[in-house]
């Protein structure tokens, strides 16, 4: 007996010009208490299919379905295109089902929660719509739900507005709303994509706990195979609106059948491999205690400086990739811009030999939409070289095939290319003026997994060919491991640990690095399920004095809350933590070999 049965679900988008088929005859079923993952790249129709089930698609969508059964009752999804009466009937039915029996979590909780309503009221509202109960009962239920999704001090939290909560907290509230009426089925559409690595792991663990405790069936829609591996027992792989493969998690990972699934699994596992290679060149770029403060000057409140980057020292050698990893708000993008010379440091200095160029995260936003590819690539040449037009065209014609773009397409505008191709053009622009160092600021995080792998390979290939150095910035630990020989970990504007990538991964020294590494998603269902649950913690604001990680740290000493740790260096490893200081670890003989203290 299955909870949800879908047969031949189709979604077509009507447009004035043409019809587009987003979902083509997909059929699947979900058993009670089962966790099903739907994996596919952007545009594969996975979200559209889920929205069709919930009846959330706009009028321009044409939905048809052979059979759709939720428990005992069948839903007439196709009625939303029918006559007015049909539609009204359908809406009435769905109003009861949405939230009551089937609910949904979306990717971006800050857009999903109403910014002007306190979270307690938002949860209670849902409860009171579906259940006959008093305000007081609804409040008690709200508190219970918040506790269930792992929010401490729920009594305090219910009178807060969404913007007062961190992204992970907001997603927890969204989950609480979805669970408010004990639905039989929970659809999560990319529930962790917008969240940081550590938080992502926590939310996934939370969803798993909820599935186990309440027996709610779940459909997890994601582009990340590893995230699906953590949660699901069965996976459906979607491509171009169709389900191309279906199987248990083990089968999908061990014996993928369809070539597309093989590719997905291969890329995910490929990313796990380290970068390898040792760079022995001279120092190309050196930063010394670089700080960047943003000045918020307000007439009424006076000055309020925010320090985005605090005393970061690092060096990048010729031909090597230096990776920087950190959560959002850790100052890694600011550091990238400081290195690239877009911003000037408030104090400290950056010394570099040779030109520095940059590859941006959203390559489309880094192109003037009014320029053709040719104009985009020509611009750096005009202002940085004395080449005449013919020489410039020759360079462009040479550069485009190198990044895998047909030179005949150079008269096109950037929006006529796909996301991966746009990133290739972005790389071409960075390379065309022949820089020594390229700063890559999250170059693949907005791309699909298969395209990510291609872009990373391209970057590696170019590095080998041109002896380039990269400063590689990413929130994705797998990407950093795959790309960089040395790496730094940033936390709230400080570089808390840096060293050789393999060593840091094998043996993290700083408590934060350790937590970050335990939150890596592994594309292997066995390991993923065995891994310990990440601790659920409140996001407290860091103390003004003391170590920024003090409030989260499991190894905090008394001094950690009072002063800031300096950076202690041991060979290639640098760590900003009192555990490694002489004052607190005792005097050491000169030939003492430091090891991890945690």
């Amino acid at each position, binding site marked *: 007996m299955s909870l949800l049965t879908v047969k031949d679900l189709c979604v077509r988008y009507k447009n004035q010009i043409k019809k587009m088929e987003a979902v083509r005859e997909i059929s699947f079923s979900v058993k009670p208490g089962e966790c099903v993952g739907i994996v596919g790249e952007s545009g594969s129709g996975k979200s559209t299919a889920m929205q069709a089930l919930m009846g959330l698609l706009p009028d321009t969508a044409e939905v048809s379905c052979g059979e759709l059964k939720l428990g005992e009752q069948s839903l007439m999804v196709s009625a939303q295109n029918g006559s007015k009466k049909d539609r009204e009937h359908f809406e009435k039915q769905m109003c009861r089902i949405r939230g009551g029996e089937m609910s949904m979590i979306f990717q971006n909780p800050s857009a999903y929660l109403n910014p002007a309503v306190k979270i307690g009221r938002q949860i209670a509202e849902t409860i009171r719509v579906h259940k006959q109960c008093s305000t007081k009962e609804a409040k008690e239920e709200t508190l219970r739900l918040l506790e269930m999704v792992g929010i401490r001090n729920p009594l305090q939290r219910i009178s807060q507005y969404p913007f007062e909560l961190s992204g992970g907290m907001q997603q927890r509230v969204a989950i609480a709303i979805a669970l408010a009426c004990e639905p039989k089925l929970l659809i999560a559409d990319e529930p962790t994509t917008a969240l940081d690595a550590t938080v992502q792991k926590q939310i996934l663990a939370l969803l798993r706990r909820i599935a186990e405790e309440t027996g709610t069936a779940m459909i997890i829609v994601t582009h990340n195979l590893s995230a699906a591996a953590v949660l699901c027992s069965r996976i459906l792989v979607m491509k171009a609106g169709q389900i191309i493969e279906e199987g248990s998690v083990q089968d999908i990972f061990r014996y993928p059948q369809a070539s597309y699934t093989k590719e997905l699994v291969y890329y995910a596992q490929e990313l796990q491999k380290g970068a390898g290679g040792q760079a022995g060149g001279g120092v190309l770029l050196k930063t010394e205690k670089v700080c960047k403060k943003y000045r918020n000057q307000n007439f009424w409140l006076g000055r309020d400086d925010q320090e985005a980057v605090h005393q970061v020292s690092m060096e990048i050698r010729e031909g090597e990739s230096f990776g920087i990893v950190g959560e959002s708000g850790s100052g890694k993008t600011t550091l990238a*811009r400081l290195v*690239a*010379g*877009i911003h000037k440091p408030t104090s400290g200095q950056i010394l570099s030999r040779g030109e*520095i*160029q*940059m590859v*941006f995260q*959203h390559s489309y*936003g*880094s*192109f*003037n*939409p*009014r320029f053709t590819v040719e104009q985009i690539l020509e*611009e*750096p040449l005009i*202002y*940085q070289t004395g080449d005449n037009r013919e020489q410039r065209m020759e360079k462009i014609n040479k550069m485009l095939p190198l990044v895998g773009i047909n030179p005949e397409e150079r008269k096109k505008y950037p929006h006529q290319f796909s996301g991966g191709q746009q990133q290739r053009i972005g790389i071409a*622009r960075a390379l065309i*003026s022949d820089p020594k160092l390229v700063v890559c600021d999250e170059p693949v995080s907005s791309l699909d997994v298969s395209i990510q792998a291609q872009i990373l390979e391209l970057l590696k290939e170019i590095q080998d060919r041109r002896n380039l150095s990269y400063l590689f910035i990413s929130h994705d630990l797998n990407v950093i491991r795959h790309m960089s020989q040395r790496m730094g970990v940033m936390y709230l504007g400080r570089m808390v640990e840096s060293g050789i990538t393999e060593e840091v991964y094998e043996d993290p020294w700083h408590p934060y690095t350790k937590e970050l590494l335990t939150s890596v998603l592994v594309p292997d269902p066995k390991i993923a399920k065995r891994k310990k649950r990440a601790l659920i913690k409140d996001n407290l604001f860091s103390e003004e004095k003391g170590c920024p990680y003090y409030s989260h740290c499991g190894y905090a000493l008394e001094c950690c809350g009072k002063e800031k740790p300096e950076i202690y260096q041991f060979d290639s490893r640098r760590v900003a933590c009192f555990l490694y200081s002489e004052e607190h670890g005792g005097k050491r003989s000169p030939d003492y070999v430091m090891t991890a203290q945690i």
Partner: protein
Amino acid sequence: MKIWCQQHKLAAAGLTGLIILTAAAIIVPLCSNYSYSAQDVQIKNLPSSFAHLFGTDKFGRDIFVRVWYGTRISLMIGIGSAFINGIIGILYGGTAGFIGGRADMLLMRIADVISSIPSLLYIILITMVLGANVGSLLLGICIAGWISTARIVRGEMLRLKEMEYVMAANLSGVPKWIIFFKHLLPGTLGPVIVNITVLIPQAIFTEAFLSFVGIGIEAPMASLGTLIQDARSQMQLYPSQMVYPIFILCLLVVSISFVGADLERAAKSQRRG
């Protein structure tokens, strides 16, 4: 062409109206046998006829010629002021937004001060000193008319300045002034053009209003405002003398507004992607 007209019905209607009105405003005063100023007591207050399509006024002047002559002045003031306001506004707002910081604050506060002075006051002064003609009216309208454009351009500039393609251009070594003219200004044009299509009817109305209260275009020159004012004294006897200029004025403003509305829609859908 046919598809374009179907997709942009408003703009097509507005443009057609505007072209006909402009053509008439240029051709009619050139080709007509009557001048806008020649008076003839014999034929005063005639109703419409083949000789005088809109009839004649109380001095025996042909209203048809006078109306088109007035349309000519309206168009000159409308388009002229849009042109001048557009250029000043784009450069002023663009500079303020591009430089930012203290200069931005100073420039925009100056603009606030200028826009807070009642315009009627200095327009009367200007027409007194320079004489009541198209030039002085243009000057009067343009003293504060550019401010709304400047504000829009400044806002757009602040937004575009933070775009990554500007950073990329910086990294490519593009000089600042080229970034300003090549990367930033073209990006602000969408909303500015929409704003200017609002400014044109506004200027036309201002001129008509000033002429109506008697501080605009000087007699015997005809503007749509003076025509309405002239006809007001005998409104109850000869209402048609008033209806014709009002009708043309409405047609003119509505045509331009149609074009503007369509442009705005296009700009919005473009922003949405």
